[in-house]
């Protein structure tokens, strides 16, 4: 049995007191424990940003990569060792801004990877510039006249590109978030959990109070059918007075990217295979083509 102690490390997060990232860290660890996933079976791949420091604050394997690039590293990791569980964690600036292209391409591939997004709608670590998920008109140090861009729609975008598990959580609803992450972890394909993350230093208007008043759970809505792709796409764009959290869309995934690979399909992870010299039959088959 995996316990919370397995994930404990003697390292104080450098996050601001009150940051939503604490709740996300807690929820993640608790979901991992509930689903009996041990730290050594797990690889958490992050980008660069406040939230992306997360693997430093738990006892776990991690790759703290480059700004915007956790997805490529995560896919490489998963292809090289599909026996390990891979979770991608990143901020909105990271994965929906600098790394937006990788995100869409990754979704299209249905890798067996869970994605958790610390979406504080701001660049935290670089001190508060607007991000791709900032609302239009948002004023920050680099948008003193208000941002001139429609916010990115990551959930709708994932739904559009074949994702079969698309959810949004909120650390103010911790139990619900733990449950969501758990469901995502159990999903046998790519799963996205976007999280409304309060940033108390640079996005005060989008702090806990704001969300607390507005969030509602899709699970509480009788008629909501998470298997209706079009409805999910529409609901994913709802924002303002009411902000949905929960599972927007869920369907049965096809085979993962790894399992569609001719080398990996139903087979031992790449790095678990012996690495030796080519046999003489192999050499002959290579040379035969050159004669």
């Amino acid at each position, binding site marked *: 049995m995996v316990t919370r102690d397995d994930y404990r490390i003697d390292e104080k997060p450098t996050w601001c007191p009150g940051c939503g990232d604490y709740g996300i860290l807690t929820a993640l660890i608790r979901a991992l424990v509930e689903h009996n996933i041990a730290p050594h079976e797990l690889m958490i791949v992050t980008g660069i940003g406040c939230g992306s420091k997360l693997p430093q604050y738990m006892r776990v394997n991690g790759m703290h*990569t480059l700004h915007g690039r956790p997805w490529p590293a995560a896919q490489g990791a998963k292809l*090289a060792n599909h026996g390990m569980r891979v979770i991608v964690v990143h901020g909105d600036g990271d994965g929906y801004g600098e790394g937006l292209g990788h995100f869409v391409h990754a979704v299209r591939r249905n890798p067996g990877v869970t994605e958790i997004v610390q979406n504080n709608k701001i660049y935290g670590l670089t001190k508060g510039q607007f991000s791709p998920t900032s609302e239009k008109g948002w004023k920050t140090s680099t948008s003193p006249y208000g941002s001139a861009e429609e916010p990115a729609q990551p959930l709708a975008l994932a739904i559009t590109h074949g994702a079969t598990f698309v959810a949004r959580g909120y650390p103010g609803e911790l139990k619900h978030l733990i449950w969501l992450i758990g469901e995502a972890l159990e999903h046998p394909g790519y799963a996205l959990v976007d999280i409304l993350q309060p940033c108390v230093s640079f996005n005060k208007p989008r702090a806990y109070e704001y969300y607390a008043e507005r969030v509602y759970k899709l699970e509480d809505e009788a008629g909501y059918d998470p298997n209706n792709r079009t409805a999910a796409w529409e609901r994913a764009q709802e924002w303002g007075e009411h902000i949905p959290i929960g599972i927007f869309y869920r369907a049965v995934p096809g085979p993962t990217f790894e399992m569609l690979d001719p080398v990996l399909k139903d087979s031992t992870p790449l790095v678990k295979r012996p690495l030796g010299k080519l046999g003489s039959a192999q050499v002959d088959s290579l040379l035969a083509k*050159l004669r």
Partner: protein
Amino acid sequence: MIENDITIRIGGEAGMGLESSGAGFAKALVRGGLHVFGVPDFYSRIRGGHNFFTLRAACDPLFSIADPVHILLALDMESVRRHIADLVPGGAVVYDSKDPLSEALRREDVLAIPVALSQLAREIGGLELMRNTLALGIAAGLLEFDLSYVESIIRDNFAKKGEDVITSNLNVIHKGAEIAEAYKADFPFRLHAVPNAPQRILLNGTQAFSMGALAGGCRFVSGYPMTPGSPVLVWFAQNGAKYGAVAKHVEDEISAINMAIGAAIMGARALVPTSGGGYALMVEGTGFAGISETPVVIYNAQRPGPATGLPTRTEQADLLFMLHASQDEFPRMVLAPGTLEEAFHLGWYAFNVAERYQTPVMVLSDQFLADAFRSLEASGLDFDAVEIDRGALLTDADLDALTERYKRYQITESGISPRALPGHPNAIWVTESNEHDEYPRIEEDAQNRIAQQSKRMRKARPMAQDVPPPTWYGPEGAALTLVCWGSTYGPAREAVDRLNAQEAGAANLLHFSGLEPFPPTAEAELRKAHKTIVVEGNYTGQLEILIRARTGLSVDGHVRRFDGRPFRPEFILAGLQEA
């Protein structure tokens, strides 16, 4: 009759199938016991334009093409226009008789062979595309090359397409040889098969490097198509699965290198093939590999730039770029094979070095080396010599025995920290792109920075012992020393041979296939030379700059080329007049 060293050039438009028929014919020559060197010259377009393929054959090993052409197979008039002047006196031009040869394109000293190429190809083979085959049949006939070798290639190449296709190709070939009969008497060159020659192989640098990498345990390739680097990606996509290598064509070069890094951290030997412009997008990733001490092999088949430049042509102008790419500093190895043998050898060696020193290794090829074909003894690809050395890699047993928290970036004398692959309960750690301490924790302390940066940089010292030293070719103590790196080896070697043929002991060659760390023996070797001329394919003289940067030595002159075309011995010899 001149029996040896014959050059055939076949020219036409893109889409006429020059490359595949040229390569097929080259294989036939090799099966006939001849040595072959073949170079494609292609425009960056899919149809039309002017492409040509130059095939040189001889009884002795070849390291370059040469200027004079003996047979020009001109599938269109443009080919006559461009290449008629290159024919040796007594050479022959085969062209389609549907267009007459204008006065300006006639040469008294050249045998003109007008043939209804397209029409006959259609009539006999059923396909206009077979005019290549017809033209090559004529060439074979003129040279009295034993057709059975050509036939065997046709049979092998079209085996999957069925008897009908084979037969029509054979008919076309024979028709060509038959046409040649009438001209043979006036054509003074021959290329007879060498009966009991060993069975050789024919391949290009792409194949040599790819096979070396595969043999060296490369099991993960992520790339994005970019000429002339993508053939390695394609090679792995098509051949890798059979040998357990995963190959992914991904969304861009940034993704390619970061995927490779992700895979390498997990323990796969990972390769990213690209060209200079694609590598430009991998610079940040290279630095990540540097600070996270992740072994990745980066293959750059250079082409002329900057930016899109000349996509299908050759140059050697990325050396200083690769050598300094990424903000800040970390040790790297830069290798540049000069021959197919070296491409194979460095192909596997690169992975050992990368893992031994846990850092990026760069292999600089170029379009010339990547695309040019050469015959060699099968033993030239020395699979037996391959070793797989994974460096300081901790085994499961090592990790089982671990009693303290694992230190991924342990400070050591050599700078090398024993490496654990993720997955073991005793070695749980986070790859860091921030500066970090030994565990690693993110750490900004000044002393820690000094310790970690020095540890990483220290690895350059033992690496210098593992970088291939520059090698000599030709007589010791020659009056003139050509200095070159990478693919220029072949043409420079032939230039040296020719100089020595004129005057024994005139010249030798110092070739660099290891450039960073700068080989410790290089200065001493350079000091042995009486007069040094650097031959390299770029404008500013990058090896020359590097030599001065590392040794303070100035060379005596240079021959440079930056027009997108490969060096040839004649170009070097002419350049030496001016150097």
